[in-house]
């Protein structure tokens, strides 16, 4: 059974078909890329899967259960975490707090525990902080735990966002253009980091990415969409030489 199974998912915005009959099956531990030209509907696919929109038609199954129509926080609680194309951290609170809050679905205490500071509350808050600090040090962010993200360089903010997504303890991590805006040396570090995360956490990773060196060196399977429709899928080598893909990226007019 696939970890994530999307069947003929279709989304209309008014009369515009943003995603058309999109299907994908992701196995546990797989690393897959979703690519396509600007405006192809890649982020919409992520928004649909993460519960931000409810698809007009189609099915989304995660661990065999339908997650269509769930609210985003419920989807995250089931084990799907994501990052954003333009970084969306909570910039005015510390990195540590960012990571802590992303464990909201697994707080394990109620409002009354919080008012009375019961042993359960104290224990859970300690666990939450320990988990956050462990994650941060694992990603080499231990030193910035008490900094505000707004004061950190862009590349570090990207890492913090990945750490925040990991803090929800996902089984599937969706990365929306993790390499966007990074310079070439940062990109190398990112490739290594994603490979390490993939190995250490045993996650499935699904990424949208424009930088082909990232996609080619990490992903075992690539899906290409354009105007909401799937135009090709296959291994990196197959995709590189696929005429449909080249046409979608470069256009088919000969000069």
């Amino acid at each position, binding site marked *: 059974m696939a970890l994530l199974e999307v069947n003929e998912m279709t989304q209309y915005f008014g009369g515009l078909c943003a995603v058309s009959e999109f299907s994908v099956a992701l196995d546990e531990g797989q690393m897959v890329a979703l690519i396509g030209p600007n405006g192809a509907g890649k982020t919409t696919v992520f928004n649909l899967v993460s519960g931000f929109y409810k698809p007009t038609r189609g099915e989304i199954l995660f661990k065999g259960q339908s997650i269509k129509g769930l609210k985003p926080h419920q989807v995250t609680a089931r084990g799907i975490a994501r990052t*954003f194309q333009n970084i969306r951290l909570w910039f005015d609170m510390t990195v540590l707090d960012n990571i802590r809050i992303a464990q909201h679905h697994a707080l394990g205490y109620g409002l009354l525990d*919080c008012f009375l500071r019961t042993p359960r509350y104290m224990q859970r808050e300690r666990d939450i902080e320990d988990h956050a600090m462990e994650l941060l040090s694992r990603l080499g962010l231990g030193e910035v735990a008490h900094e505000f993200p707004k004061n950190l360089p862009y590349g570090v903010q990207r890492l913090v966002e990945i750490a925040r997504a990991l803090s929800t303890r996902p089984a599937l991590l969706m990365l929306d253009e993790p390499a966007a805006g990074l310079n070439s040396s940062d990109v190398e570090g990112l490739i290594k980091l994603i490979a390490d995360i993939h190995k250490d956490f045993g996650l499935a990773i699904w990424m949208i990415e424009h930088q082909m060196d990232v996609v080619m060196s990490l992903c075992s399977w690539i899906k290409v969409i354009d105007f909401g429709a799937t135009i090709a899928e296959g291994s990196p080598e197959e995709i590189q030489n696929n005429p449909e893909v080249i046409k979608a990226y470069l256009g088919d007019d000969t000069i």
Partner: protein
Amino acid sequence: MKRLTVPALLALLLAVLLWACMSGALNAYWQSVILFMGVNIILSSSLNIINGNMGEFSCGHAGFMAVGAYVSSLLSVALFTKSAVFGEPLLSPDLAVWLFPLVLLAGALAASVVGLLVAIPSFKTRGDYLAIITIAAAYIVKSTIENIGVIGGARGFMGMGGVMNAMTATANLPWIMIWVFVGTVFSVWLIRRFIYSTFGKGVDAISQDEIAAEIMSVDTDRVKLVAFMVSCGLAGLAGGLFAHILGYVNPGTFTILKSTEIMVMVYLGGMGSLSGSVLAAILMTLLIEYLRDAFGYINTFLHYISVIPDSYEVTQVWKWVLIPLLLVLLMQFRPEGIMGRRELADVFPGLRKFYKFKG
């Protein structure tokens, strides 16, 4: 040891206050100033959860205060004292001392339930639109009270003085000072524990990026509901205390002007800063009291230099020009308030050496 610093200081403060009230070192006027200070601290620090931490804009805090004021007043009058509305007391007036906290709590709970009127629309509505809803909610409360003739309608409701007298008859202590003190400490304690927990930090997350909060597993609807109910409930508690200080409530007190006064305190203190709210409430209370005298002097002075006609007197009404004006100036020149988003211990890190809180 450090953990005991704050409780010890508070106990000392209460002891000094009680001594000062009983020995007559504080006259009735200064006692009332201190009482209103306490009420204002509860009001500003509870509104701060919504207008500061959550980044929403509620202008209806006085409405929830009114709910608490009326519910607890009606209950305490019905239970503990003989009145024209309810007749003989339902319980022995001797019980007033023991059951009064429960009466206040009932007022707070009622206010937090009425808070749903704002909390539920907040799931879908944000910003300006939610602000309009909060004004509407406050007016619903005010008009409802004005139109219930049995409890006095627009004329107001009284009899809480009898309840306070019943307490004094049981034990001769300045009870209202005790209740306001306990209520204020309780509120700040509750708010602090809420906003410092990972659960409560969800409120800040919503204010900074609601979509990210929702996608990062924060149940935004639930967090908003809790935040509004805590905030409105504490406004109700403040209302209950307010009504028992005055011994009389009138729906005319709980207008948008009252809400504005609370908002000025929150913005003066700094949005999202609990210690700022407390500090600003203290400052504002003193300022308003000072203005009371100052208008008299200004009046005399302006008549003396003959810039205003003899028939016109500068009165307290000008307070309602000055306070909104203060809000305008504040927003223009120091929108972050006294403390910004920081707490007292962030501004003076040395303070941390002397106290410590649990967790």
